[in-house]
Structures are given as structure tokens and as C-alpha cells.
């Protein structure tokens, strides 16, 4: 309560009031919004207001917006056509208008107000705590593993088949095709795919086989080429690394698909790995690979594409199995710690889901209060 009072006092101290028009900083933003308040007009002919803004005294006021109701006394200035940014000095003028849009009276002008960015976005407090918990758990389990405790990871069939798939490609003298999908580096699935590429490329290098990595995005291409190069180095076969194994095709979805399908038909890879972010091209790729008789292992977190992979691939990593794959393959203690931490987080969420649902049911039958819904709303910040 004390914090709220101080915040309110601070908010008031950061407002500019002049001539009945006040300006306040919009809380929890990057300085791109301001709140303008005024006293409603007593003119009975008024049908609304014009909101004028002045960014530069030399340029004068310009019409920012029209308010259609005379009862309105608040306007939030957030318009991409007239963007605000932190540090901008602006002032506002409110004019009452008639039904014919004639200006009736000037209600006032605010003094110059400087927009500012909030240091902390209070609406994301729950996200902050969730992040802290997640990071805390990961650090705890990393520490636990470093002390020598081993962590169990359950069997993932698609990943157990990777060895067999790479071995088959070696025996047949054909390449392994690794498709990272249409994602960018900001996609978690692409990051997971790049993580899996390392162990796969290392295995390919150890078996003295060939890996082909066609790329959709230039940034992903630079990352995958570095990963494959590094994998060949780790396998002790830097001489076997051929930079042409990893290549960029096109940033156009279906041009990329046409080219990868062509590669599948001409190079006839023995193993196709589709791991990453996929869209409408998933079935086109997997179906073509199926026709060539290749072993296919797919994995994505794109829910709409998973059914296509399930029907046309030998093994499919569903959603989070893709994220767990890099830990599973490398058995890296740090990655295993993240898996354990994620499981604990899932457990916490499950407890939250079930307990709040039970509380809600009990509330319906016994307590009959809206406190439960208010509790959930407060926690998730839902209006």
C-alpha cells in the first residue's frame, strides 16, 4: 500500500498541469505514450473535442485526434503516425467542438511535458519472477551436476535412431540431409535444431560420411556452417570439412522447398533430418523424402505441422522433445540441468493448474465468492 501511495505521488509530481489540461506519463512503457486529461466542457452545444499537440514551438500545434464524446476527459496519446519517444518535449491543447466540427472554445493548453521511459515494466512482474525461478532452478541443477550427481533422461526413440540413420547413410555411401526449416535465429526451434546439428555433424564426420545442410535464412546459414565446421574439428577430421556442404538457397518458402526436393531426388540422401521450424512446406519435404526411401527423422514445435511429420516420417520429435534432444545427444551436464529444471517448472505449473482449478470448483459449490477469480487475475494480470 505504501509503495502504491509513493507511486501515485510520484506520478502526480511527474505531470504537467496548466489551464485545466494535464499531461501524465503513461506508466510501464518506453516513453511512447502520454495521458492527457482535461475538465469536461459546460458548453451544451459541444459534441466532442479536438486534441492538438505541439512537438516544436516553431511548428505550432497540429491536430492529433478527434474525441467524439463531450463526456470524455481523458486521451492516451499513442499513434504510430505521430510517434512519441522518451525525452520528447510536447504540449497539448484541447478544443471543444460542435456537431458541425466548429471550434467552440479552447479548454486549455498544457505546459511542456517531457515523455520518459519506465525503468521497470510493472505489468511484467510475474514474468520477471517466473524468469528468476527458471534461472534459479537451472543454476541449482548445474551446481548439483558439478558436484557429481548424475541426472536421468528418459529414452527418446527418434534420437536413439540417429546413430542407426547416420550409419545407414555411411553404409550406402549417400549423404545425410539436415534441414533446419524456415525459422530464424530468434525461433527456439531453430536454436534447438542448431544445437542438434553439432552432435549429428560430429557423428557424420566420425563415420566419414557427408552431410548436406541447405539453409533458408542467411543468418542461420552462417551459424550452421560454423557449427558443422566446429563439429568436424571436434571429431578430429578438419580436413574432411567441405564448406560447400552447408549452403544458402533462398529466403522464399517454396523456392527453398523446390530446391530441397530437387536435392532429395538427385543426391538421394539415405537419411533426412527435418529439425526446426516448419510451415506449409513440411508435408512437401517429408513426402518427397518418403518417396526416395530415406530414413526420416523430424522434429518441430509447430503444432500444425507435426501431424504431417507423424504420418510421413519414421520418427518424430514432438515439441519439447526437440528442445531436449541436444541434451540427450550430447549428455552435456549443463544441458541436462536445463532439462531437469524445465521438468520442475512443468511440475510447478501442473500444481498451479490443478490447485487453482480445484479451488475454483470448491468456490462454485461452497465459498461462492469472486476472490478466486480475482486471485487468478492478479497472478496472471488478466483484466
Amino acid at each position, binding site marked *: 500500500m505504501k509503495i502504491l501511495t509513493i507511486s501515485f505521488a510520484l506520478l502526480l509530481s511527474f505531470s504537467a498541469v496548466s489551464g485545466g489540461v494535464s499531461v501524465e506519463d503513461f506508466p510501464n512503457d518506453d516513453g511512447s505514450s502520454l495521458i492527457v486529461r482535461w475538465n469536461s466542457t459546460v458548453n451544451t452545444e459541444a459534441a466532442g473535442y479536438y486534441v492538438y499537440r505541439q512537438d516544436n514551438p516553431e511548428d505550432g500545434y497540429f491536430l492529433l485526434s478527434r474525441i467524439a464524446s463531450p463526456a470524455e476527459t481523458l486521451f492516451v496519446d499513442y499513434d504510430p503516425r505521430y510517434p512519441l519517444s522518451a525525452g520528447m518535449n510536447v504540449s497539448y491543447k484541447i478544443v471543444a467542438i460542435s456537431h458541425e466540427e466548429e471550434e467552440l472554445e479552447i479548454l486549455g493548453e498544457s505546459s511542456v511535458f517531457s515523455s520518459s521511459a519506465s525503468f521497470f515494466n510493472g505489468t*511484467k512482474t*510475474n*514474468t520477471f519472477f*517466473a*524468469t528468476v525461478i527458471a534461472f534459479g532452478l537451472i543454476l541449482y541443477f548445474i551446481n548439483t551436476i558439478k558436484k557429481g550427481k548424475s*541426472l*536421468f*533422461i*528418459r529414452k*527418446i526413440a527418434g534420437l536413439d535412431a540417429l546413430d542407426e540413420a547416420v550409419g545407414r547413410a555411411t553404409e550406402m555411401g549417400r549423404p545425410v540431409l539436415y534441414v533446419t526449416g524456415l525459422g*530464424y*535465429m*530468434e525461433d*527456439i526451434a531453430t*536454436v534447438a535444431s542448431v544445437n542438434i546439428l553439432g552432435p549429428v555433424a560430429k557423428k557424420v564426420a566420425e563415420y566419414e560420411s557427408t552431410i548436406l545442410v541447405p539453409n533458408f535464412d542467411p*543468418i542461420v546459414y*552462417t*551459424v550452421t*556452417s*560454423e557449427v558443422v565446421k566446429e563439429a568436424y574439428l571436434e571429431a578430429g577430421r578438419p580436413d574432411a570439412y567441405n564448406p560447400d556442404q552447408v549452403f544458402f538457397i*533462398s*529466403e*522464399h518458402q*517454396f*523456392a527453398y522447398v*523446390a*530446391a530441397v*526436393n*530437387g536435392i532429395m*531426388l*538427385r543426391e538421394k540422401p539415405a537419411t533426412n533430418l527435418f529439425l526446426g521450424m516448419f510451415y*506449409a512446406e513440411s*508435408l512437401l519435404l517429408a513426402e518427397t523424402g518418403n518417396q526416395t526411401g530415406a530414413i526420416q527423422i523430424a522434429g518441430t514445435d509447430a*503444432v*500444425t505441422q*507435426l*501431424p*504431417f511429420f*507423424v*504420418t510421413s516420417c519414421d520418427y518424430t520429435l514432438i*515439441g*519439447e*522433445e526437440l528442445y531436449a534432444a541436444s541434451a540427450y545427444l550430447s549428455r552435456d551436464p549443463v544441458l541436462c540441468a536445463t*532439462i531437469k529444471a524445465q*521438468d520442475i517448472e*512443468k*511440475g510447478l*505449473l*501442473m500444481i498451479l*493448474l*490443478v490447485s*487453482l*482449478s480445484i479451488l*475454483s*470448483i470448491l468456490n*462454485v459449490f461452497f465459498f461462492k465468492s469472486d476472490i478466486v*477469480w480475482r486471485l*487468478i487475475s492478479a497472478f*496472471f494480470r*488478466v483484466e
Partner: protein
Amino acid sequence: MQLSTSIWVWIAAFLTLTIYSFLYKDNPLYRFAEHVFVGASVGWSIAIVWHMTAIPYIGIPLRDAFVQRNWPGLIYVAIPTLLGCLYFFRFFPKQSWLARWPIALMMGYYCGISISPSIETNIFTQVQGTILTGFNPTSLSSWWALLLLIGVVSTLFYFFFSLKHEGIVGKTSRLGIWFVMIAFGASFGYTVMARVSLLIGRIQFLLHDWLGILK
């Protein structure tokens, strides 16, 4: 029947048919269409990047900052531009390690920036939508919501990786994968319908725009 007189419609129809020839087997016509498609898309992408990124976000701001003697502004644009240019060191084997700097920066940036939206959309919004609120035994939608809750909890069990899937955990996770497969079946049917509509669109182009058979 009224054949199209537009050369572009003929080219589009020819390329459509050459791409469809893939359904028979790989052939020179398909390869021709594939290479035209890839080449055209790469050329188009380069033009887009040049006109919509390089010029407005690098060229013009650098020029303006230089003309206005706005040195902080110049540095503000020049630093990321120089970092981006480090990618070109991939062409020089001895200095190619410099390309790792922008890669590391991009990876770190994207991993960091995706934390908050991932938690909000993948966790909070989903959990909030799954919690039973205002359960009404006489309403069918409440029972559907309960089924949804059971489905989510059992599916979460399937995605426990650090627990052996035996006993109650194994049974619950098996129930969870049933829910997942039912959802996949529904999604499959829905998406196939959308794909069929794409095919219909292409056939309409061939029969209406090109051959003029359909009115």
C-alpha cells in the same frame, strides 16, 4: 473456351505445369522451373534487402548524420553496420573467425529477447486459459473445460524427461499422448482442407485465367 492473350499468364501456366510435372518424376522441365524459381527469389530478396533495409536503415541515416555533423547519430548507425559487415569475413579463411562476433551477438540477443514473450504466451496465457473458472455442472462447456484440463495435465506428464515413464507416470503420459494424437488428427484434417483450397486456386487459374474454360 477463351485462351488468355497475356504472355504473363502463359508463362505462369507453363511454370505451374512444369512444377506439377514433379508428380511424375524429376525431369529437365522441373529442374528448369526450380532453378528459375530459386534464382528469381534470391534476386528479389537482394533487391528487397537493398531498398528496404540497406538504404533506409544504413545509407540514409549515415548520410544524414554526416551532413548534420551528428556524430553520436553516426556512431549509433555505424557500429551495428560494422558488426554486420563482419559477416563478410567468411570469404577470407584466415580472418573468418571475425564472423563469429555478429553470430554470437545475434544468438545472445535473440535468446534473451525471446525469454519474456515465451513465458507470457507459452506459459501464462496457456495456464490461464486452462484453469477451470466458474465451473457449472449443468453446462456442457464446463465439462469440455474439465476434459481440457485433464488433457493438458496428462500431456505435460508425457513431456517429463527426467522421470521414468513407469507406473502412474507411464499411464498418465500414455493418456497424454492419446490426447496429442487426437489433436494431431483434427489438425491434419483441418490443414488438408486448407491445402485442397490452394490446389483449387491453382486449378482455377489454369482453367479460368489461362484456358478460359471456367467462367
